[in-house]
């Protein structure tokens, strides 16, 4: 596990997934639930489809005992994008030099923001309960070439170390007043990027040598922990998704 510090907080969602009570559930179960809700949030009429899907995802995040602070921290950047991008929907541009507040844009803005927040909650339900290390070895079943999934798995293995390197180099530079002026800040940032590049290639070379002495033939098969698919969980998921689809389409069709 990562040590406490900023690198750990960068990967707080993955850490929550590794340490949460849903850790040993089959990733396909969690994908069906969270991504099913995500599809409902995006594809069904926003009111009430997104409201129901997002609400269900929020309740399930609590049921999976994901710390609220982890969810809120992860949601900050996407919510900032949603807030910023929604502003242009509330104004119209009748001529190139004129902007006017457009009350007719309010329903579109509310619909878009609502859909996005609901979909984000569903995404967080998946990411905060399903470790990426459980997902990657199973991606080839979706038809993705094994060479691509293996490169993705190697990327995953190395990125924790590299992000930790960035943090360590940044801390050392800060201790040497490396961010005192704009000039020194840019020089320090370039140093961080160069250090990460050198360490990434060095790591690749060491892996290459280590694998070569073990008779590497091109296959990087790793043992994947076996999890049983829970029939009651899948049945409950199907019932929940069915109820959301029926309610959303049933409520909308008479209008």
């Amino acid at each position, binding site marked *: 596990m990562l040590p406490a510090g900023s690198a750990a907080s960068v990967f707080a969602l993955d850490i929550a997934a590794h340490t949460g009570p849903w850790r040993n559930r089959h990733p396909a179960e969690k994908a069906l639930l969270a991504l099913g809700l995500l599809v409902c949030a*995006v594809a069904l009429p926003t009111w009430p489809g997104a409201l129901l899907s997002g609400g269900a995802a929020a309740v399930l995040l609590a049921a999976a005992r994901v710390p609220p602070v982890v969810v809120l921290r*992860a949601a900050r950047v996407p919510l900032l994008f949603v807030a910023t991008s929604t502003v242009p929907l509330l104004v119209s541009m009748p001529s190139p030099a004129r902007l006017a507040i457009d009350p007719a844009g309010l329903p579109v803005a509310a619909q878009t923001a609502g859909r996005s927040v609901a979909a984000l909650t569903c995404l967080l339900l998946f990411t905060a309960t399903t470790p990426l290390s459980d997902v990657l070895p199973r991606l080839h079943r979706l038809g993705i070439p094994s060479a691509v999934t293996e490169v993705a798995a190697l*990327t995953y293995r*190395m990125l924790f170390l590299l992000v930790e390197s960035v943090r360590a180099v940044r801390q050392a530079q800060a201790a040497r007043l490396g961010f005192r002026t704009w000039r020194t800040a840019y020089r320090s940032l370039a140093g961080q990027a160069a250090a990460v590049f050198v360490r990434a290639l060095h790591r690749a070379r060491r892996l290459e040598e280590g694998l070569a002495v073990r008779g590497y033939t091109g296959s990087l098969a790793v043992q994947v922990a076996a999890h049983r698919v829970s029939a009651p969980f899948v049945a409950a998921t199907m019932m929940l998704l069915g109820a959301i689809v029926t309610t959303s389409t049933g409520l909308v069709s008479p209008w």
Partner: protein
Amino acid sequence: MHIAEGYLPPEQAAAWFVVSAPFVVHGSRALVRQIRTDPDSKLLLGAAGAFTFALSALKIPSVTGSSSHPTGTGLGAVLFRPPVMSVLGSIVLLFQALLLAHGGLSTLGANIFSMAIVGPWVAYGSYTMVRRAGGGLGPAVFAAAALGSLATYGVTVAQLALAFPDPASGIAGALAKFGGIFAVTQIPLAISEGLLTVLVVRLLSRTSRDDLRRLGLLRPAAEVRA
């Protein structure tokens, strides 16, 4: 600039997957061929993906007082070439969605098109043009990083404008509105990323000449003045 999960209407989100798919499939085939010829290159590609992800952990100080992270598009395209970057960029965007909730799964197609396809191709095109015109490594790398970042921003703005045209002036008006609101951060960021990438390549050409030669950025025994 990642389009957040669920922000695009479902038809548009699906359409961007269709637009991006041929590029990613082409890149995947190139990557599979490369690994079949040289199985060890898998490790270098994994390291390249992790490097691209780690670049997004850098915090560039912004003129608006906040900080932002570089896209890494320009440097990645120059070091690893655009077809490989379309796959590595897609992997990095998937990781950013699943590990950090930046971007999303429904908007992955749109984000891949702007950040893993158009950005790297514009960056690599700019780099090649400046080099062929006799420019040095420094100006070529600056053009690649700054224009790659600007192209990513421009495509994202176009994607938003297509999804939400202005009721009075249509797509043109929406381009101006979305372009204006994001220009405050994205244009200074593109210039910052250009300058930073020049410094990074200058540093690497002193410390990692052999690696840059192996990646084709420096010619064997060539004198470099970045």
